């Protein structure tokens, strides 16, 4: 059953990808959706058996690599952590598959899209079911490829192609770190299998490794390298620049890959490696700081963006920051809990945004929307649910997970944890603000779109709304339903051995005993954020403009996303182009070609002409040459006579 769950999407991808041309769009849609739904149902059964029933298991499929002492298998390891991921991946993916049938109905290459989606799902499942680092890397790269293909799905659009390349290149930086991390782990433990690594981790807690001639704490180095990989995939501050651009892809892709699943792969990977991270306080502190910084950074930028999808993209970036600083304070369970709830409400928001875009004739700028709630009532309600969950309003899904994270951060009693708490609360305020800014500008107020567009505003078809309703159910109830099991007092009974938290890091346990103001503050700031949004965009619409003009510098700074792209462009991209051009024109063209092939060829021609010119046609020249030859040979012997 586990094997089928993982490989059914691959089957769908192959059928739709290789034969989509022949079987037609409709057949490709039916095949991929059916297989994915089957996979999702089985994932539910697996969750029932493994997470609730406690029957963790590993299925070995085949031997992959055997070289010296290195042995890598293709195998599917399913424990509670994986079971949760299976649920998230297959359910959201199934919803997105179905939704795409409606959303992409006017696209000329539907079968290709469905095939890519299924391929992505397969790679993601390989990633989460891996029992070793190498297979995980396979899945890791697989989702990277699928992401590249899907961001650049409309490859005739230059901006889409550029965004796809950017995503791929930025991810390479992270992947390089991940690969080095795998090498480091192998050097340290002599194995890439999780079970072997985790079993040996306590013994290696004090080991050191020589790196650039200095002795370092070995596990810290490995963890930091692995975290670089996670930063790339999960768009953490520094390596986040690709995620907003990735919104060039079709909206279902943004929902599946760039909100619910792939970007959370980094979170999953670090949680999976918890038995390693637990032995390095330095690495955990770094994770906390990076996570908190990302959360606040992305939230500030999200407040001023005008593209509906980019606002949600920065929101995703920010929420991933929350997950990471939860990990940083050893609240892995809370991180995964938030991962799950976030997957539902963020996919809901993205697909809802897609529904809006669909209704608005492909308009994405929220400044040109407004007042459409009457026309798209279902979407409107669903977007409200998603936003309430995102803002962490009580009893919606996000409330449970986000509050747990913030409480755990406060309860960690470390400087980084405390800082993360305060930054997290500020970010929660901003989150609520930009969520309602989006809602109010999109659905409420007077219409700002032209009459032509407004005349066409229509509710999406059922095939798009049903997945939305499904996800809304998750956004409503996932937090409430999962709270006790995921992060409650007895969460150890749920997670069992899949996550390790040492006694030195009791933050999650402490989170249940924090002062009441700590627990209440996030809700208070969220409500104030909503109130501020109402003030700005309903009661005093002139205020934001006045503010933006007064604090022009700050506004520009935020609008330009802290100038990260410009900085990277100046720091890496331009020099890389310059270097490339230099090596190409100077190194390859002038030096290698000039002295090598071209130079030799030119010299050959010159020599050839000289040799041919000796052929004068005059008899006496020829005779002369012969006699000179004989004379030269005889002279040679006279002077070389022994």
């Amino acid at each position: 059953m586990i094997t089928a769950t993982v490989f059914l999407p691959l089957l769908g991808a192959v059928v739709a990808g290789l034969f989509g041309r022949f079987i037609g769009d409709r057949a490709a849609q039916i095949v991929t959706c059916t297989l994915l739904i089957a996979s999702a149902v089985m994932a539910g059964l697996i969750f029932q058996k493994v997470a609730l029933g406690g029957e963790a298991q590993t299925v070995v499929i085949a031997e992959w690599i055997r070289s010296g002492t290195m042995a890598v298998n293709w195998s599917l390891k399913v424990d509670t952590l994986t079971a949760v991921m299976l649920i998230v991946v297959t359910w959201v993916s199934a919803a997105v598959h179905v939704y795409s049938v409606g959303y992409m109905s006017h696209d000329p290459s539907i079968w290709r899209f469905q095939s890519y989606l299924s391929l992505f799902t397969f790679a993601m499942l390989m990633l989460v079911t891996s029992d070793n680092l190498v297979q995980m890397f396979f899945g890791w790269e697989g989702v990277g490829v699928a992401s590249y293909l899907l961001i650049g799905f409309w490859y005739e659009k230059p901006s889409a192609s550029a965004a796809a390349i950017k995503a791929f290149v930025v991810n390479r930086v992270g992947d390089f770190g991940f690969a080095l991390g795998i090498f480091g782990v192998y050097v340290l433990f002599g194995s890439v299998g999780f079970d072997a690594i985790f079993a040996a981790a306590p013994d290696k807690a004090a080991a050191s490794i020589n790196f650039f001639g200095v002795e370092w704490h070995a596990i810290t180095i490995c963890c930091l390298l692995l975290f670089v990989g996670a930063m790339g995939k999960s768009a953490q501050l520094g390596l986040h620049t690709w995620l907003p651009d990735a919104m060039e892809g079709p909206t279902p892709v943004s929902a599946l890959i760039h909100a619910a699943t792939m970007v959370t792969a980094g979170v999953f990977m670090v949680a999976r490696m918890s038995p390693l991270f637990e032995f390095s306080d330095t690495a955990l502190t770094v994770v906390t700081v990076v996570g908190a910084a990302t959360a606040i950074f992305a939230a500030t930028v999200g407040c001023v963006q005008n593209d509906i999808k980019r606002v949600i993209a920065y929101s995703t970036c920010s929420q991933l920051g929350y997950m990471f600083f939860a990990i940083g304070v050893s609240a892995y369970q809370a991180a995964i809990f938030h991962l799950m709830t976030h997957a539902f409400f963020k996919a809901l928001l993205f697909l809802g945004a897609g529904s809006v875009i669909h209704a608005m004739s492909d308009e994405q700028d929220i400044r040109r929307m407004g007042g459409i709630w009457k026309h798209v009532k279902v979407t409107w309600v669903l977007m409200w649910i998603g936003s309430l969950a995102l803002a962490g309003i009580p009893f919606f899904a996000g409330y449970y997970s986000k509050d747990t994270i913030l409480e755990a951060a406060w309860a960690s009693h470390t400087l980084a944890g405390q800082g993360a708490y305060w930054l997290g609360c500020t970010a929660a305020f901003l989150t609520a603000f930009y969520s309602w800014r989006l809602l109010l500008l999109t659905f409420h107020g007077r219409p700002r779109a032209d009459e032509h567009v407004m005349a066409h505003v229509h509710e999406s078809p059922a095939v798009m709304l049903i997945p939305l309703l499904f996800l809304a159910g998750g956004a409503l109830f996932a937090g409430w339903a999962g709270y006790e099991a995921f992060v409650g007092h007895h969460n150890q009974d749920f997670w069992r051995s899949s996550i390790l938290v040492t006694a030195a890091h009791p933050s999650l346990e402490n989170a249940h005993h924090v002062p009441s103001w700590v627990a209440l503050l996030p809700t208070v700031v969220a409500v104030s954020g909503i109130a501020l949004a109402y003030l700005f965009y309903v009661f005093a619409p002139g205020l934001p403009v006045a503010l933006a003009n007064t604090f022009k510098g700050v506004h520009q700074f935020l609008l330009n996303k802290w100038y990260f792209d410009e900085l990277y462009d100046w720091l890496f991209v331009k020099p890389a182009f310059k270097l490339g051009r230099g090596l190409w024109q100077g190194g390859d063209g002038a030096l290698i070609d000039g002295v090598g092939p071209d130079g030799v060829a030119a010299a050959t021609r010159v020599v050839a002409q000289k040799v041919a010119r000796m052929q004068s046609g005059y008899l006496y020249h020829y005779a002369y040459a012969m006699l000179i030859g004989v004379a030269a040979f005889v002279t040679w012997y006279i002077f070389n006579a022994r």
Partner: protein
Amino acid sequence: MIQTSDLVPVLPEIFIALAGLALLMLGVFRKEDSTKSVSVLVILAFGAAMVLVSSLGAERLTAFNGLFVADRFAGFAKGLVLVASAIALAMSLPYLEREKIGRFEYPVLVLFATLGMMMMISANDFIALYLGLELQSLSLYVLAAYNRDNAKATEAGLKYFVLGSLASGLLLYGISLLYGFAGTTSFEGLANLFAGGHEHPVKPNMGVIAGLVFVLAGLSFKVSAVPFHMWAPDVYEGAPTPVTSFFAVAPKIAALCLLTRVMTGPFADLVEQWRQVVTFIAIGSMFVGAFAAVVQTNIKRLMAYSSIGHVGFVLVGIAAGSTLGIQGVLIYLAIYLFMNVGVFAVVLSMRQKGRLVEGIDDLAGLSKTHPMMAFVMAVLMFSMAGVPPLAGFWGKFYVFMAAVEAGQFTLAIIGLLSSVVSAYYYLRIIKVMYFDEPVEAFDKPVGASMSLVMAVSTIVILAFTLIPAPLVTSAKAAAQVLFPAAG
């Protein structure tokens, strides 16, 4: 005294000579034009001679007091020469008829030239050598100027004659020097002398060396090796194309076999001395053959430089001075024979509106107008360039391997480099045929004999890689008789 047993080893030559005389009579006394019938009879005579040659067996026989020798080496070489001459003559016929210059002397001259070559190959004494060489040369001079109404052809014939005489002079002078310092012109006598088997062993002194150089110069002229090559491009271009195709193959093979026998026979123990000159000549020939051909626009001139280059490669094998080297030489010559007749069959088919054209540009777009001919030419060009798995590659492989085994690394490396350069002009022809826009198409039909030659040569070139054994083993057996000591 001539004994009857003396005549057995010479039977093929005697047969050819008598056939020549008979056919001359036939030509003179027949009223109508007899070019065709005489040609056919000459080709038949070559075939018969071939049977006689092969019937002589593996034994080493001498005749006329050791002036003449028949052994496996001679048999192999004569086989190649007879095949080459027969094919060249067969390819000449359509041309002669079309140009209306057919006269029965033409086949007879080819026959006497071939007789000279056979005598050269079997020479075992410098006097016999000279006789064979002159019989061949005189016939060739006439053939070069055969189209006597054509200024270019007569110029070619004259140049060839004057320079050939000079070369013969050098050769004779070298022979007289050798005789003066060694007291004999017999190959065996000289070999014994230098090997130290004589009562008064002769040290390789200055006079002997000078004689050796002069002999080498004379023979180098015949094989058109640098710096005695300059006649070749002019004569190849000027002479009628069938004559060129004859020149390019049979006399080259004969002269190279002769050179091989001289270097490994009487001068076997002077290998350290002659190797220096042969190395230089080989390098020069490969170099000139590679570079000068790059700028040629006339296909016959190009073939002249190409053959100079090939001679360079063959000399690499001779310079190795070992059984392996000579085996390589013989394999190379056999492959060279088929490559060249194939190419000349194509060149002879290059007719536009009944007129023969010779420009490389005229081949443009041949792949579209004559796909089969273009394919044949492409195979031959790849083979000439030494592209595996075609036969030309193996020819080069054997001589370079021999050079490496003999420790001649410089020679092998320079050879490889020059074969890279020469690949340029071979591949350029393929490029012109396959990638340039077609100009005027060549006349059809190509003719049965041409098609046959093209087909046979292509098959041989392609098949050698699959079934190399017959050629390789017979070449090895032939090479071994030159090194009786090595057994």
